């Protein structure tokens, strides 16, 4: 009992300390006055502080500020798999060849010139530039050989399967490397020689130690890299997790002052600050307010009207190398029937999707290779609903289905040719079609695809197909479609397709029809497979093109995927402080822009 009363006393004491209440009236009054004074004082302090800070000029003249939609998760080049980490890393780690921003052809970057193919030995000879790492040491052929060694020893995802094509690497001298191929391969240049090169000095000890552990790749990926060593235009100066990344100009950058792709490269800024914004809306407000000079992420068409009115904002509108499509499960009824897939292709109004959902910032897609990829795109593939209106689509689809044995109790088109509410469609074997699910990504991941799914559902119902669009979480969706193959149809997309069209093979090659394989539809066509393999071995670009055009034609006949649309990328920057962004496929967020952006000076850095 003793302790209890002491405790109560104690608690009371604490309470009276925390709460300025007292039984005594005068003390009470006094305390109140003190409190009011403290309150007023702190309010004044706060206000002063706010004005002090908002008046202050924070920007240093020559530092570019770029907004990012999410935090770069890691600086470890072996681990990074998110887009935002790569935005940082791509300024640091460079490949031997890059794409020219205008022609989209590969041009020498860390390499001195284009590789020389020796057909007898099946080998490429690559001469390297006299580049330096960002600590001033030389970049040599040994670094290239070391990087290749890591790709192969650790089976680094994404690279290993491509680098397997290399039989061995010979360091001829400090700046010459010879790559011996196992067999002719059309994709070596675009997939192997563009890989990022790392420094042997920085990684050798780490790699050797990691190889001795049980999980070598995981150990390598979990290695913390404070200051990655690269050959690119920028290097890490400060990286505060969750808040910002500051990159300084790399004084040793090999491109500075040279002219590559008709551009005299900088970087012309002293550094770049990358800031994070939790939502795009706020990032765009920040752009208008001048907190950032550019937002490195596509913006929604809804912003355009307002941004056009803002005097300092410059809008960029560029095509993307993307493919958004509806895919079918060819392994089971009802979508194993090509006629049904063609009827659906007829019903889908791509124009509607593009004009409404994309607000005209995009193009309808008719082939698997996007039209922006001019050299490889086949414009002459079969089109199913060209120039038809709503009624004609339904009539045409009905005809197609009726001819191959589908039937209705109440058909969608009556004798006079008018539309009506149909009964459920019956398959050629007489059974009514069962419920069809169209899986789409959820609204939080991509509202457009979720919405496209809803629209397609409505169109299919108009001819009595019992379709149900079902958005599901992205992981769950891919698990069903790619892992378990348990689905009817889906709407998915690839946002950043490589410019090399080898993916046409990847997506539809019959051997890729396995769990986690990329042939999600289960497409199996020996003729196509033969062409797909042939194009991979074809070293002559023009001959390869013929093969690829034919592959596209076959795919659009068989329709394992119905290509839907290819959105454009809209980006915005502020021209108040910097200009000179380089527009290319995928927009202005690229290495070239960062090498070319210049501060706007009073004397005028006007471009000719």
């Amino acid at each position: 009992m003793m302790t209890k009363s002491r405790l109560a006393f104690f608690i009371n004491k604490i309470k009276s300390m925390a709460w300025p209440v007292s039984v005594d009236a005068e003390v009470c009054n006094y305390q109140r006055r003190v409190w009011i004074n403290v309150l007023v004082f702190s309010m004044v302090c706060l206000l002063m502080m706010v004005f002090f800070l908002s008046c202050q000029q924070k920007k240093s003249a020559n530092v570019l500020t770029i907004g990012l939609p999410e935090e770069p998760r890691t600086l470890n080049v072996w681990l990074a798999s998110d887009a935002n980490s790569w935005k940082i890393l791509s300024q640091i780690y460079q490949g031997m060849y890059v794409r020219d921003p205008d022609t989209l052809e590969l041009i020498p970057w860390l390499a001195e010139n284009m590789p020389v193919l020796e057909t007898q030995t099946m080998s490429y000879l690559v001469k390297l530039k006299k580049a330096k790492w960002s600590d001033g040491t030389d970049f040599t052929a040994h670094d290239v050989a070391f990087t290749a060694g890591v790709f192969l020893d650790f089976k680094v995802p994404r690279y290993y399967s491509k680098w397997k094509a290399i039989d061995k690497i010979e360091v001829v001298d400090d700046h010459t490397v010879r790559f011996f191929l196992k067999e002719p391969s059309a994709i070596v240049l675009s997939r192997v020689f563009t890989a990022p090169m790392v420094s042997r000095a920085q990684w050798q000890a780490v790699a050797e130690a990691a190889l001795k552990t049980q999980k070598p790749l995981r150990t390598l990926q979990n290695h913390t890299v404070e200051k990655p060593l690269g050959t690119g235009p920028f290097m890490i100066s400060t990286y505060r997790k969750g808040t910002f990344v500051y990159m300084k100009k790399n004084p040793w950058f090999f491109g500075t002052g040279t002219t590559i792709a008709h551009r005299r490269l900088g970087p012309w800024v002293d550094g770049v600050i990358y800031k994070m914004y939790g939502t795009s809306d706020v990032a765009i407000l920040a752009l208008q307010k001048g907190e950032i000079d550019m937002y490195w992420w596509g913006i929604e068409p809804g912003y355009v009207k307002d941004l056009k009115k803002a005097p300092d904002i410059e809008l960029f509108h560029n095509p993307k190398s993307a493919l958004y499509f509806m895919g079918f499960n060819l392994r089971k009824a009802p979508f194993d029937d090509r006629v049904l897939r063609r009827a659906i292709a007829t019903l889908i109004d791509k124009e509607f999707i593009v004009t409404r959902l994309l607000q005209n910032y995009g193009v309808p897609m008719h082939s698997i290779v996007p039209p922006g990829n001019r050299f490889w795109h086949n414009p002459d593939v079969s089109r199913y609903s060209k120039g038809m209106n709503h009624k004609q689509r339904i009539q045409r689809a009905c005809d197609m289905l009726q001819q191959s044995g589908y039937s209705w109790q109440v058909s969608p088109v009556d004798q006079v040719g008018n539309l009506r509410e149909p009964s459920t469609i019956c398959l050629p074997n007489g059974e009514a079609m069962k419920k069809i699910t169209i899986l789409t990504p959820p609204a939080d991941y991509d509202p457009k695809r979720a919405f496209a799914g809803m629209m397609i559902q409505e169109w299919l119902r108009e001819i009595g197909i019992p379709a149900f669009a079902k958005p599901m979480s992205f992981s769950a969706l891919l698990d069903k479609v790619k892992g378990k193959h348990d689905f009817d149809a889906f709407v998915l997309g690839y946002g950043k397709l490589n410019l090399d069209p080898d993916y046409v093979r990847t997506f539809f090659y019959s051997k890729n029809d396995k769990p986690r394989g990329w042939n999600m539809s289960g497409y199996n066509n020996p003729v196509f497979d033969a062409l797909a393999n042939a194009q991979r071995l074809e070293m002559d670009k023009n001959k390869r093109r013929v093969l690829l055009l034919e592959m596209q034609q076959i795919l659009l006949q068989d329709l394992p995927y119905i290509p839907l649309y290819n959105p454009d990328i809209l980006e915005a920057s502020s021209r108040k402080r910097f200009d000179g962004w380089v527009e290319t496929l995928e927009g202005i967020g690229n290495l070239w822009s960062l090498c070319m952006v210049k501060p706007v000076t009073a004397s005028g850095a006007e471009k000719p």
Partner: protein
Amino acid sequence: MSYNSGFTQRFSTSWKIFIKNPLGKAGLALLMLFAFMALASFALPFIGDMYDPMTGVDPLVLHSVGPSAVHWLGTDFIGRDIFCQLLEGSKIAFIVGLASAFISIVIGTVVGMVSGYAGGIVDMLLMRLADMVMVLPSLVILLIIAALFGQLNIWMIVFLIAILRWPAVARVIRSQTLSLKQRPFIEASRVAGASNVRIIFKHIMPNVLPLAFLYMTFRVTSAILVEASLSFLGFGDPGQISWGMMLQWVWSSGHMFQAPYWLLPPGICISLLTLSFYMVGRAMDEVLDPRLRKEGKPS
């Protein structure tokens, strides 16, 4: 005095006190307005295809436009009428709010009564369970479930909200039951040979119902807010128009600060509807308060 008789009479006196309360009056008026909106949404299919909140598209409108005679609140980015969506949204808000509140009240009341009446180990287990559910942050749990198991449909959301929100009710009902248990009329019916189930449902339930009903109005508020947040973040049911979903569309299509005619109505409606339920609840609280306090005191 029998506690079973005069229920209707007690109700009518309570009603008189309730309607005198300005909060209650205002809340009820607002509630009626939203109920009318919800009812009006059933008429939408008869007006025309263009006014279907989900699929109706104005063929002349290619992007979001402001209010006009044809579209009272303007259209969204694909040309659907915002006013129609608002009506449909109020229907969904009522369904979500009332249904999940009702389910959680049913669970909470049953658990509370059983736990209070049975006592002992049953009481201990049920209350520990309630504690456990109570410490779970509902929005985060819902987000996790939505993110892990794919998109939830509207009924799943209703059910999950209910499952996460019953413990507070159970606690209150339990303490109420505890005090009722001591009353002579319960003792009398037990002596008269009434079974436990009969005592719980015949004698205890009518007396805890007003309290349960009061808590229901508060649950409605939180259920509507949780559903709206979930939809706003894009984890809602995209096949169903709700106010949160409308805000999601404004947000994801980049009209957040460009289209006030589209952004403001759903946000204001969410606040007003929850406010009206809350005001009704408060007014009821004041009606029930004095009597409950006297009954609820531990004896």
